[in-house]
């Protein structure tokens, strides 16, 4: 593990100790019983810490620097991937990757936010915050998928759409709005997974699906905890409190009963501790939902999706 969060530190320290003991072990010196004991302790500690994570800690996990991003899931879940670029209008947006691939042989379109890992790639990916041209590229690829009768997989992981002068000039709001309307009318299966941060309209713009899944430690909200705190208390540092109020975790949203269809389990320490297992879990869920949706006609898919979002209402009459 390259990076770790505060609450991960005790686990990381123990694992480090185990690694050291292993390195010292030779044919003459046997630490295996100590190692076993420490491993047991590490597992117990990890289970304990992860069983009572606060909403803020879960938010931090969703933003973990080592968390798998869209291109990682593409590598581990799909084959035959090729990326396509540009909105045919202004430029290519590296914060949103689009392309085509196969899921166990089945051709499909894949769309997702992409963050960077080091400073250079973070800047290149604009921290996963798309500009209007990113959303327009995504829509172009979705329409193409519809044209060729391919299912669409969307992976959501963004702090939000980029708030900049150029973004406003080129119609950030219009780009997001158009995607919402056009996605509602797609005649092919659309399966959305919130893999990390589901940040507001910038997330929703690729998240109008027949199925919406959330990874166990992902979050999804109308505003970031920091943004919410800045508005409510004029103090962005009170994010942890805002995270509690926003009820933004996968479990919270699942309990509303109408927004998401499944919480996909992650490895105990979070998806970043085991990409292969995290991807395998996700793949299983994607295949299950795709199988169910393939039984529906284009018209039925549109209607099912419409009714799903139509039912998202809590009012008193």
């Amino acid at each position, binding site marked *: 593990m390259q990076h770790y969060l505060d609450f991960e530190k005790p686990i990381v320290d123990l694992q480090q100790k185990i690694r050291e003991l292993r390195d010292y072990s030779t044919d003459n010196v046997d630490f295996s019983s100590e190692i076993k004991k420490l491993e047991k302790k590490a597992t117990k500690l990890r289970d304990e810490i992860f069983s009572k994570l606060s909403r803020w800690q879960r938010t931090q996990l969703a933003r973990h620097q080592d968390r798998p991003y869209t291109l990682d899931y593409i590598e581990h879940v799909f084959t035959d991937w090729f990326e396509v670029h540009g909105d045919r209008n202004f430029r290519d947006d590296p914060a949103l990757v689009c392309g085509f691939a196969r899921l166990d042989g089945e051709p499909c379109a894949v769309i997702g936010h992409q963050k960077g890992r080091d400073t250079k790639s973070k800047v290149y990916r604009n921290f996963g915050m798309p500009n209007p041209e990113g959303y327009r590229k995504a829509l172009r690829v979705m329409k193409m998928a519809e044209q060729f009768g391919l299912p669409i997989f969307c992976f959501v992981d963004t702090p939000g*759409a*980029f*708030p*900049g*002068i150029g*973004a*406003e*000039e*080129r*119609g*950030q*709001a*219009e780009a*997001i*709005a*158009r995607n*919402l*309307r*056009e996605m*509602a*009318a797609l005649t092919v299966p659309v399966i959305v997974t919130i893999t990390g941060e589901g940040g*507001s*309209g910038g997330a*929703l*713009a690729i*998240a*109008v699906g027949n199925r919406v899944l959330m990874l166990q430690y992902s979050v*999804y*909200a*109308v*505003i970031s905890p920091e*943004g*919410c705190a800045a*508005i*409510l*208390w004029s103090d962005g540092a009170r994010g942890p409190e*805002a995270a509690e*109020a*926003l*009820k*933004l975790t996968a479990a919270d*949203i699942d309990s*509303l009963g109408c*927004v998401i269809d499944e919480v996909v389990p992650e490895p105990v320490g979070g998806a970043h501790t085991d990409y292969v297992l995290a991807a395998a879990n996700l793949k299983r869920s994607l295949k299950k939902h795709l199988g169910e949706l393939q039984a529906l006609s284009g018209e039925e898919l549109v209607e099912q*999706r*419409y009714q799903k*979002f*139509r039912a*998202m*209402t*809590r*009012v*008193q*009459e």
Partner: protein
Amino acid sequence: MAWFKRKKKPLTGAVEAKKVQMPEGVWTKCKNCDEIIYTKEIERNLNVCPKCDYHFRISARARIDLVLDGGSFEEVDAGMQSVDFLGFKDSKKYKERIKAALAKAGGGDAIVCGTGAIEGLPVAVGVFDFSFMGGSMGSVVGEKITRIMEKGLELKCPVIIFSSSGGARMQESILSLMQMAKTSAVLAKLKAEGVPFISVLTDPTTGGVTASFAMLGDINMAEPKALIGFAGPRVIEQTIRQQLPDGFQRSEFLLEHGMVDMIVQRQEMKARLAQILRIFTKS
């Protein structure tokens, strides 16, 4: 002991009598040009500043009176109210915020919806009320918009929404976000059925409202100098650490960048809407 002692009683009465008693609200300071103007004069001018043409925010009822034919408006879903299903609490509980807003407004929520007529042409309309929690869109607003659009679909009559909103209602978290998808999805149906949708953007229209139905009008119309945008100016300034240019995110800026079709004065709004409706419904 004091060095000076007041021997005479202080002079009162005469001074106070001279002061002119000025009741609140007789004069209004224009937010745009800072001119102090007789309030009645602004009201006579449809709440538009006579000096600088600034369009003041008006209530949903005033907007309905202004645009629809007299007596034609029939409200729907008037009794729909917000629920605090998350138990949201910041400095105040959402439940209490709803209660306070309801008491102030005498019921309803941040939008008034219904059917009516413009120069005799039937329309389904929704009008935001910015004074109700900043016109924010939660479940109630999203549901009322969706229903009025479905009404337009059912009656095959044009839909007009007058927006004035700070965006999604934070206190309803994820469900307020979902109202963006819901209100945009129904527009796909209107489009397929050939039912016209006119979006009128008034000061201010930002966030989740702009990034959903409000930007999806067959015609996007704006009142002069209205603030219209996705991210609020403060957020952008903090992100790019630069001061924003004058006129940024105003109606005129959006017109220049091709995001709205026209800017229409309040006085001309009704006639212009009627003109468009006649073309789009071939009557």
